[in-house]
């Protein structure tokens, strides 16, 4: 079995063992006939087929409640589909053992729509956490954290706690945490919702740069300007279905 094989390789490696998940296959995300119906009866994602390859930069757009976040949550197993198959880098998520889920998640940097910062940890500690789970040595962690804090322009807020930050600053901490361990895939859910246009473009620059260096980026966004000014593949959701999937698409939800 593919799954078993992979896990063996992972355990055999010493350094950066978390990355092994995403070596080999070129198809990183593969959703086949996936449907997600929540406990309250809402079908948030309805029979979608989505394929995302290594190195792509994909915008996920669509009106409020269209199912973008649900789609995203299924990739890192915050939610499980009620029907259909999801393969991450060729691994069937149904066959992934519980204890290997953390390994999968370490390969996916996620910027959560609601940030999900740990309220009792400082900005530094929040970001460092994603490296601590990899058991990196202290000095490596420190160096990396200040690197990404610099990228998101929050170096001077390292010792602050999330409640002491503005909305946009919290969002940038979440972005920094998602990038810290150079994950092969970065998924950002509305990463510029609380940012002014200038800062948003700064973040876009960073995302495009890591994409250029090989990271696959999936970004749910409502930012028409960004999508239109910097066109890339666009997957459009509406009512839980994929209504459009085009290379170099436009935002296209005009007033």
């Amino acid at each position, binding site marked *: 079995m593919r799954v078993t094989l992979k896990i063996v390789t992972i355990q055999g490696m010493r350094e950066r063992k978390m990355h092994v998940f995403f070596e080999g296959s070129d198809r990183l995300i593969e959703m086949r006939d996936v449907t997600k119906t929540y406990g309250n009866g809402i079908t948030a994602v309805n029979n979608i087929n989505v394929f995302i390859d290594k190195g792509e930069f994909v915008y996920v757009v669509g009106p409020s409640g269209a199912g973008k976040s649900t789609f995203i949550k299924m990739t890192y197993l915050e939610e499980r589909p009620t029907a259909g198959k999801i393969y991450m880098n060729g691994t069937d998520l149904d066959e992934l053992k519980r*204890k290997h889920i953390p390994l999968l998640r370490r390969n996916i940097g996620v910027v959560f729509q609601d940030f*999900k*910062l740990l309220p009792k940890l400082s900005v530094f500690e929040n970001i460092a*956490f*994603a490296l601590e789970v*990899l*058991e990196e040595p202290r000095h490596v962690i420190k160096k990396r954290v200040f690197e990404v804090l610099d990228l998101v322009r929050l170096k001077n807020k390292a010792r602050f706690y999330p409640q002491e930050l503005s909305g946009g600053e919290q969002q940038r901490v979440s972005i920094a945490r998602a990038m810290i361990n150079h994950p092969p895939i970065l998924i950002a859910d509305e990463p510029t919702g609380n940012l002014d246009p200038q800062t948003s473009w700064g973040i876009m620059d960073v995302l495009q740069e890591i994409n250029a260096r090989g990271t696959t980026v999936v970004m749910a966004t409502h930012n028409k300007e960004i999508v239109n000014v910097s066109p890339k593949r666009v997957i459009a959701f509406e009512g839980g279905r994929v209504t459009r999937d085009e290379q170099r698409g436009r935002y296209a939800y005009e007033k």
Partner: protein
Amino acid sequence: MKSRTLLRHSKEGLKNIGRNGWMSFASVSAVTIMLMVVGIFLILIANINHIASDVEGDVEIRVHIDMTASEEDKEGLYEQIDAIDNVAAITYVDRDEGLDQFIEDVDEGSAELFESLRNENPLNDVFVVETKEPQLTEDVAGEIEQFANIDTVDYGEDIIEQLFAVTNMIRIVGAALVLGLMFTAMFLIANTIKLTIVARKNEIQIMKLVGATNGFIRWPFFVEGLVLGLLGAILPVAAVISGYYYLYDLLVTEAILSFVDIVPPNPLTFEIAAILIGIGALVGVWGSLMSVRKFLRV
């Protein structure tokens, strides 16, 4: 697990105690109070049990020897009794001694009048027999009754059953109370710790979503629970040891209530201290890990 990770988990566990500020305080004070209660009751029960044993220890068999028995008969009888398995000690009290004791025991008002008995002492010579266990009294007495040269064998037949009933009841009630109290304490401590951890449910889930394994999350909670439990045991242990030493001094050296014999503090308080520390650590860790467990399924 790398050793620096172990270190990280320990540090993190300790930091969490500070981070959760008064929640930790609430847990520690719950542990403190419950262990204090358990400690006090352990001491009480130890002493009640001690006193009950003392009272039981007073049970003795009085073998009234036939007035007509010769010295040799008595020696024979002595050896016969001595040969019984469960006999611990035999004391010979001759009739004059017996009368002395009797007059001493009798209330003062009548005492001098009994002096008149000295001339025609109505008492027998007596072997006072102690058994190895108070509970064996009846059996031993039965055996002795078979021997020759005996007038009567007397061990307070009616009283002894009731006495044992009472001391046993005290023991059972005491043990039930202490056990019940211990479980109550454990439940309540675990309950409190659980509440502080449930408040951190979201945080635990975020950690999982960021790629932490269950073990990675659990270790700091292990340390935290352990330390909370141990912190909670400090005060009760100190209170039990110093308090009981003080009390013992007061009762024994100051000779207040000198007729009640209480358990000396030396092994007792330290045994209790060990129990309290054990409960604290155990329940701390257990309560902590139990509560984390259900939030790890993310």
